């Protein structure tokens, strides 16, 4: 038998999140399949590293495996990882499959990680974006003049729509929205909006014009550590990672369905949140106003920062997304909501 390998795993959110549950399944499975030769020392809830420190910490070996969002927290180090722009897709599974495949097929993206001493194990698309607000948002023009808590590409999006993006920290904004510190909160995935109490605390909810999936969570391993593992152990990690995606997709779909039903329940209560979804014409208007602006902005910035042609990466990525969409059975939260209790 081989030497015992301890891998230090760090995550910035707690065990209750689906992404964390997926990682727990992955780690348990790896431990089982390696007959305990690989064991994980697990740190959740930022108890080892905060969100922004996960990927820098991974590069320097402070953790061996991390689950984080380098595109949000370490933008300059991981410009290409930000390729999941709003309005590309509403299919989380397609994002999951496409990004993982992009890592294995696109040299520029792989180099982005290797140059930071990291190697992607698997990536996971978040669920679709939501916007919760004090006033109903159902048309593109409803954005005009609002103060909206938003980050990243979604901040650029609401700005393009005439709103003022505000960067109040999430928990403060959640408390503050009821009292008007901000008019709306977005850049919050469908599932966490329900689970985190945002939907319950708001007057109005919407898909915001189908901004879709705008971020991914990436699990990566320190490259030096990876290279020190035996080929057998490497194979176990790769195999389980692949199975993990299948397992995760199922878990994620169940979860989103559950959250959608929960939202139905919340919305059915007296005086509770009112959900309005954008119609096709208005959704198209939102996209027309914002997409080209953020796309061009991203391509220019990412090309400069990564020193590659980022438009090529985006095209490859979108092609992969379409490929995975074709075989995906994923239903996003708003679709399920509409089917189950939409008017």
């Amino acid at each position, binding site marked *: 038998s081989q030497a015992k390998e301890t891998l230090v795993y760090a995550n910035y959110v707690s065990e209750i999140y689906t992404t964390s549950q997926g990682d727990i399944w992955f780690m348990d499975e790896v431990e089982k399949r390696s007959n305990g030769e690989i064991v994980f020392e697990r740190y959740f809830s930022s108890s080892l590293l905060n969100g*922004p420190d996960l990927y820098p910490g991974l590069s320097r070996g402070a953790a061996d495996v991390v689950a984080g969002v380098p595109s*949000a*927290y370490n*933008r*300059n*180090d991981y410009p290409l990882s930000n390729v999941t722009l709003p309005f590309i897709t509403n299919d989380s599974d397609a994002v999951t499959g496409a990004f993982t495949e992009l890592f294995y097929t696109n040299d520029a993206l792989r180099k982005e990680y290797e140059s930071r001493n990291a190697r992607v194990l698997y990536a996971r698309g978040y669920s679709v974006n939501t916007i919760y607000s004090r006033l109903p948002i159902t048309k593109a023009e409803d954005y005009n*003049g609002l*103060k909206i808590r*938003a*980050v*990243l590409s979604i*901040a650029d999006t609401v700005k393009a729509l005439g709103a*003022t*993006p*505000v*960067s*109040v*920290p999430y928990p403060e904004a959640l408390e503050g929205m009821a009292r008007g*510190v901000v008019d709306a909160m977005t850049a919050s995935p469908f599932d966490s909006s329900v689970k985190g109490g945002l939907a319950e605390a708001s007057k109005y909810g919407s898909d915001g014009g189908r901004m879709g999936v705008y971020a991914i969570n990436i699990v990566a391993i320190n490259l030096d550590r990876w290279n020190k593992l035996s080929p057998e152990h490497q194979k176990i990690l790769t195999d389980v990672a692949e199975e993990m995606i299948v397992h995760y997709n199922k878990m994620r779909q169940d979860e989103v369905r559950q959250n959608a039903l929960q939202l139905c329940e919340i919305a059915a209560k007296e005086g509770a949140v009112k959900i309005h979804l954008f119609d096709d014409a208005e959704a198209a208007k939102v996209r027309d106003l914002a997409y080209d602006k953020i796309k061009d902005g991203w391509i220019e910035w990412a090309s400069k920062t990564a020193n590659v042609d980022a438009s090529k990466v985006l095209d490859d990525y979108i092609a992969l997304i379409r490929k995975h969409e074709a075989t995906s059975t994923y239903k996003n939260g708003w679709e399920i909501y509409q089917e189950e209790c939409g008017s």
Partner: protein
Amino acid sequence: MLIRIVEFIERFLLRLGVASGFLTLLTMLIIVADVVGRGFFNKPIPGGNELAVLIMVGLIFLGMAAAQQKKHNFSIDLVTGFLPPGPLRVANFIATAVSTAVCGLLAWLTIDIAHAMTLSGESSYGVIAFPIWPSRIILAIGLVCLTLQFFFDFLRAAGVLPEKPDEEEKASI
């Protein structure tokens, strides 16, 4: 000569403490302006929160040496309070030596990371990109100053420098 130099540096560290205090004012003004701008004119200060954090880092770390110089850092004298002068001097010698070493290690490591982050242009991205690396540099400077102050305290405990007269009793937080 040594005494003169130390006195000069210590005065400078106190000045830094004063500067740190004034950063409270700046933090306050930025946040108030941000609230007023957002609440009444729908125009928050872009990067206002990030700027407030940058200034707070200065407020926290630039005042550390002065806080130590003015004995604002609590310690427990449950045991040391009963020690006769001889052993007390030994305890004090060890305490200041450990403080200097630990703080020096921390300062050295933060200089390293400040250097790396400045080269990579570390920044955060909420609504706009905001540079973080200046905070790293300020922080490292603050810890270097604190190490210096601990070192001076050590020199006093070692008898290289004369004791300072007790001007002030311990701070009250």
